[in-house]
């Protein structure tokens, strides 16, 4: 499996994702934001960080970068695209994913381990997880409060486009297990063709027991098919 990680000047989880991909035997290339063409790849990843400082809106400026045009093209051709954290924010700014990520409801940056529940395990990103499996992943963001309009929310539910929801360790999804105020506890969504996944939690941080746990591994192994 060939992957490409897009690197913006303010990306800071690019090395982390590269390490995880290497561990999982992906053939990975790093792609600098000023490049105008993507290497041939089956999977494009937009990593976490603060792409261009994120001073205007998270992901807004990255959404206008040269390389992003290529990502949009590739995504429309059906290439797999994974946006993690800032990557998710960028995907919503480009319109590849609908909805948006507002500031956390407590107006603070939040870094902690949270539980999420697998809502759809029939996609190329999630097939190695069990349905409703509870994962413990790390979140680290200022703007992770997912918001969208009613029509889109209906579409997300009706077409099974919600990938993960924040939950407690038993799988209950309620206000109590919602770290950032996200609509319906949504932690990650697919586009309608399910070739694009945007998620706030960091699977790449969960591939090494010495550091955390291995709950992120199956996302990568799902992609390997």
């Amino acid at each position: 499996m060939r992957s490409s990680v897009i690197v913006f000047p303010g990306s800071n989880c690019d090395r982390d994702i590269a390490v995880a991909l290497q561990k999982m035997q992906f053939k990975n290339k790093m792609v600098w934001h000023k490049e105008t063409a993507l290497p041939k790849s089956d999977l494009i990843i937009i990593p976490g960080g603060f792409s261009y400082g994120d001073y205007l809106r998270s992901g807004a400026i990255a959404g206008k970068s040269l390389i992003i045009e290529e990502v949009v093209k590739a995504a429309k051709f059906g290439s797999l695209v994974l946006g993690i954290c800032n990557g998710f924010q960028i995907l919503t700014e480009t319109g590849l994913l609908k909805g948006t990520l507002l500031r956390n409801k407590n107006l603070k940056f939040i870094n902690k381990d949270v539980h999420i529940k697998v809502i759809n395990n029939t996609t190329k990103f999630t097939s190695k997880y069990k349905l409703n499996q509870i994962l413990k992943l790390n979140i680290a963001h200022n703007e992770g409060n997912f918001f969208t309009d009613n029509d889109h929310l209906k579409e997300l539910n009706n077409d099974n486009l919600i990938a993960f929801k924040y939950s407690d360790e038993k799988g209950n999804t309620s206000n109590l297990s919602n770290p950032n105020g996200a609509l319906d506890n949504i932690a990650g969504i697919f586009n309608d063709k399910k070739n694009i996944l945007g998620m706030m939690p960091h699977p790449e941080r969960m591939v090494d027991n010495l550091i955390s746990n291995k709950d992120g591994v199956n996302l990568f192994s799902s992609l390997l098919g």
Partner: protein
Amino acid sequence: MKLISVKLSPLNSKKNKLKFSVTVTLKKDVLDPQGKVVQNTLKNLGMHDLKNIRQGKFFEIEINEKDEKLAQEKVNEMCKKLLVNLIIEDYKINILK
């Protein structure tokens, strides 16, 4: 509409550039976590007459363009292309004379 306590800007008189202000606010039906916290905090500080507060962004933009209409179009384009997230935000452009 009248403004108070705003000094007149001498800039636009030079004619070859124009200055605009843009205010960007969250759409009515979009959750505004920040506005809510600000409102609560102000009430806790004893400001009980506060009825409602909404927070947004503000830009002051100078354009090298003397035609007012053209200039405003350019500002509008900047808003649409970058400054505003049209999914969740509304905006207003004002010329500063």
